[in-house]
């Protein structure tokens, strides 16, 4: 039997529309990493196969967030391709730097404006942490799906999420300290 990730004509039209609208952007993201026209085109193709598979996650997302999602997919597909071509071994996360939940928050004060501050902290993160966090929080990816897309183990994906959280707390604390001074 044949099941499709594209469920309706609307889904199919959306995918083609996404491609026509954002293929240049996705190519640019991929080319910046791979530095090869042919590989960048391959990355766009692979990215779209992943996007089709995850269509149900994105069909209700607003336009700016979709654009960011496509960049995340393209970047990670391209990085994986680059790693594969260079046979790079991903450096494992340093467990000493990973703290479990509930740490360090007592020192910061959460206010309404903290959302903007935290958003700035997220934007300042390195892409590997930022992508992991956004895939989880915004695009509804499971740890396993994040691991598959980013080419790491589930354990590493979880550590990256924790590390991203800790870095955000550090950023907010630092900002507050600066304001106090």
């Amino acid at each position, binding site marked *: 039997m044949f099941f499709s990730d594209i469920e309706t004509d609307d889904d199919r039209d959306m995918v083609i529309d996404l491609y026509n609208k954002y293929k240049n952007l996705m*190519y640019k993201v991929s080319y910046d990493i791979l530095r090869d026209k042919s590989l960048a085109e391959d990355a766009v193709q692979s990215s779209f196969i992943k996007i089709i598979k995850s269509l149900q996650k994105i069909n209700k997302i607003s336009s700016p967030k979709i654009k960011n999602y496509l960049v995340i997919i393209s970047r990670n597909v391209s990085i994986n391709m680059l790693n594969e071509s260079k046979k790079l071994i991903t450096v494992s996360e340093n467990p000493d730097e990973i703290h479990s939940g509930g740490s360090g928050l007592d020192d910061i004060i959460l206010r309404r404006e903290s959302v903007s501050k935290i958003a700035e902290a997220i934007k300042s993160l390195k892409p590997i942490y930022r992508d992991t966090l956004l895939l989880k929080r915004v695009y509804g990816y499971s740890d396993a799906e994040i691991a598959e897309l980013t080419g790491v183990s589930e354990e590493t994906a979880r550590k990256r999420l924790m590390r991203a959280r800790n870095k955000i707390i550090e950023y907010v604390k630092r900002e507050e300290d600066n304001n106090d001074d």
Partner: protein
Amino acid sequence: MIDEKGNTAFDGAFEVMLSAAAEKAAEDMGEEIQKPEEIEFSEEHEEKMKRIFARENRKLRRKRIIKYSKRCACAMLAFVIAAGVGIYNVEAWRSKVLNFFLEDEGVASKVILELDESSEVSHSNATDSTQLSVSYIPEGFDIADIRDYFILYKNVENPDIYFDVSSSPIDANIYIDTENMTQEHITINGYDAVYLEKESYQSVLCYDDNWVYYISGNIGRELIKIAEHVKRF
């Protein structure tokens, strides 16, 4: 207040804010992305993208042919009906096919059945009370899956050998896989039909006054004999 994981209410508030901030960051970053310059993609790339979209399109079309119902039919009921215990009067929604052909759309073909417009077609009621039946099954095959619109048979000794039978209302939009397949026009029970074949896959498309039947598998021309014994009652 501390929960079983050692998290405080403060942690909970931070989690909520973190999610809201992530949404904001994703939106901000999307808006900050500049429109890149136009890229001239290679013909090979565009061809591959077309194939990716066509493949998904084909899956969608196949899915429509099958029109899976969520309700599974009981195998015993299907055989009872195959034995001739009809529960629906088809005369009430009889339609008539004036013309039948396949319209090539690349990797798939659209099934064109020109109907006599004066015929009464009301399948919405019929689909709830009719059953797909197959009154000839080659020796060594048994039902592997059965739904309202579909029955899959597999060879008992070698499950890789299979055939399936599906049906769809005659006035539905139907597409079938015709990529790299030879076509032979045949007659099934007095109606025009087509036998399609490629190395490892064959199919028969046929119809009666109310239903289109699609029989496919890897057992060669035996599918034609099966097609002669497929019916919805």
